[in-house]
């Protein structure tokens, strides 16, 4: 084998290889298999609960199963390499099909075959011939008037060499572009999702009433700084008499360079957006701020009282113990199962010996008596700080997602309900001196609807007199 021959074989082999891959990428089989595989994988993702903590998985599954699923990415499968690979293959498939179909679609929109000749007549199913005793000009005028209504614009008129006049009508040419709309829209949505995950973040922040934050923690556990301060002025939760939630709302201010630049009360379904960052009402809660504790003797006399912030040890004059408020519960469960109401947990550090913990109940002031000793503690006053929980989201890809969605819906509507209709009419005077009209039509979709439309047109042409 000479070098030239070898080169030639290699080249054809190469082409063969490329065309095989191209054939695979543009095949319908690939589309359908991908769509069904993606469905099947998605089902798996709804059966196995996603993104739970490992402890929860260990509670549900055997340790071996947990390790296996965790390694395969089954607990966060929508972000696993194999799921993303399937989506990438789908994107590649859509791209290839779009390129593959481009020429055909563009060719379909070009005006060609303007004359109802023999060749075209063969490809059209029903050619109808109508003869009139009227002069050709009259027939032409009435025909244009009756047919023109259903089709956009003026027809292309050609006069052939043999004196036959040809009219070409068309409508809905651009409906052929629906293919690009539906398929490119999916790619645009993917692009938007990718842009969002690379250049955006999702996070969460709690803000106490009257306080402001300038940073938050993202879902990937990074600290995200903001160019401004978000202040929570107030938070309110309202409930229906049944106890079901009615309204959560936070009065927020955006502060920049020491000035309030925006103020809005946000609710669920009504977030606040500033500089591309959106704050959503997501949760709420309360934490204790300050507590006033009384030391009471067995005889009921108040021995001493002290006010302390949470998490700080405080010594009490005349008492050996040091006190620290450490925890808070809004609904303390009493031993009999009933709700004990607000309660704080204190650590008591005696002068000698080990520290002990105790719960002090706001509504059950003698609860601490059960600990024994010559005195007990009770809560005189408890200040609670409410906070609002905000979901924070910055997503520069969002606009692409909506653009793609609108394009997708419009494309699907056009693809199903519009079609490219073509209509050919030729007029001539036959041997007997009568006017002869030939009509034929074609639509690229919804052919039975078009056939009915044609019947109407033909009927109205027959009625010309």
């Amino acid at each position, binding site marked *: 084998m000479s070098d030239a021959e070898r080169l030639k074989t290699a080249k054809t082999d190469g082409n063969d290889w490329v065309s095989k891959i191209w054939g695979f990428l543009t095949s319908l089989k690939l589309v359908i298999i991908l*769509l069904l595989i*993606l469905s099947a994988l998605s*089902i798996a993702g*709804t059966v196995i609960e996603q993104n739970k903590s490992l402890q929860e998985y260990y509670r549900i599954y055997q340790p071996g199963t947990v390790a296996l699923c965790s390694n395969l990415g089954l607990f966060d499968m929508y972000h696993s390499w194999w799921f993303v690979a399937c989506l990438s293959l789908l994107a590649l498939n859509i791209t290839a099909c779009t390129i593959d179909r481009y020429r055909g679609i563009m060719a379909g929109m070009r005006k060609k075959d303007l004359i109802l000749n023999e060749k075209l007549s063969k490809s059209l199913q029903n050619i109808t011939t109508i003869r009139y005793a009227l002069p050709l000009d009259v027939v032409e005028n009435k025909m244009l008037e009756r047919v023109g209504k259903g089709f956009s614009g003026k027809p292309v008129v050609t006069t052939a060499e043999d004196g036959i006049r040809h009219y070409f009508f068309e409508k809905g040419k651009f409906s052929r572009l629906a293919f690009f709309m539906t398929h490119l829209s999916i790619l645009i949505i993917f692009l938007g999702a990718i842009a969002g995950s690379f250049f955006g973040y999702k996070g969460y922040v709690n803000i106490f009433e009257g306080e402001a934050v300038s940073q938050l923690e993202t879902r990937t556990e990074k600290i995200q700084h903001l160019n401004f301060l978000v202040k929570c002025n107030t938070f309110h939760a309202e409930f229906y008499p049944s106890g079901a939630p009615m309204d959560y709302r936070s009065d927020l201010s955006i502060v920049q360079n020491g000035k309030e630049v925006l103020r809005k009360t946000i*609710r669920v379904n009504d977030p606040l957006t500033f500089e591309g960052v959106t704050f959503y009402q997501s949760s709420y809660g309360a934490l204790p701020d300050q507590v006033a504790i009384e030391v009471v003797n067995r005889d009921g006399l108040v021995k001493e009282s002290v006010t302390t912030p949470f998490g700080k040890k405080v010594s009490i004059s005349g008492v050996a113990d040091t006190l620290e408020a450490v925890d808070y519960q809004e609904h303390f469960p009493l031993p009999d199962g009933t709700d004990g109401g607000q309660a704080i947990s204190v650590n008591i550090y005696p002068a000698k010996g080990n520290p002990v913990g105790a719960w002090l109940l706001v509504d059950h002031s003698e609860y601490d008596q059960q600990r024994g000793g010559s005195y007990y503690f009770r809560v005189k006053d408890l200040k609670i700080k409410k906070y609002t929980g905000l979901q924070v989201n910055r997503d520069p890809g969002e606009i692409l997602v909506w653009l793609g969605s609108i394009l997708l819906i419009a494309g699907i509507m056009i693809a199903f309900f519009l079609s490219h209709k073509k209509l050919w009419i030729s007029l001539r005077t036959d041997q007997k001196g009568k006017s002869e009209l030939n009509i034929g039509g074609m639509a690229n979709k919804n052919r039975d609807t078009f056939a009915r439309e044609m019947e109407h047109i033909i009927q109205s042409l027959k009625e010309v007199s």
Partner: protein
Amino acid sequence: MTNSLLFGIATFVYFFAMVIYVSYLAFRSEALGKVASLSLLCGVVVETAAIGMRWYESYYMGIGRAPLTNLYESLVFFAWTIAVIYLVLEKKFKIRTVGAFVAPFPFLIMAYASLNPNDIQPLVPALKSNWLISHVVSCFIGYAAFAVSFGVSILYFFKVWHEMRSTKSAGFFWNSLPSSSALDEIGYKTIAIGFPLLTIGIVTGAFWANVAWGAYWSWDPKETWSLIVWLIYAAYLHARITRGWRGKRAAILSIIGFAATMFCYLGVNLILSGLHSYGGAS
């Protein structure tokens, strides 16, 4: 409540319509057929009044919301959309004999709905949105179209099975059904109605989720299942339009698609956990 009474009457009328449709299939009297269509239409009218009444009564109670927010309301609305879509198709394709296979759905769904609590509860904050109506209505018209396509596909199999078995001794009953190719075409046309609406339902849902929770897509089971349904019908449409899949294979995909639709609608709420809490024990 007046709305409960009207829903009760509508259920009864749907039952009546179902009986008449079946009798029409058996006796093939044109008059009976007209009564069948008229009684189904009557059921739709009464149910429309019931839904309107329920909406009005919610304002009267000081709650004021569209009746589309819990399992009971979604079921009765589902029954309503199936009846409406079927009536439109019956008029368009002249398929009154199919009614015997579709008319039982509104009745059975209404009967099932009546087993669920039907008091008018106020809305939780997440549901207070202008997106509620467009999202729910488009999803349910989509579901209903798929339901009709499912009924037609089942009928298609009966018909094909019969056409294969005997061509000569075609019975009275079988001849009264549309031809298998007509059923195939109607099955496709209904999906062509349902698919765009499901797409609109998913997109409006994504938009709403983005406003309410700050994420347009979070792989919540309901979202995921709606995507699965969408993918199955997308596969159906691709196979049909570009490769000319017709008949049995198309009918099988349509049946699988509807099974997935039903799981998306009810199964997700009853079996899986997630953000759409209108069904199930919650």
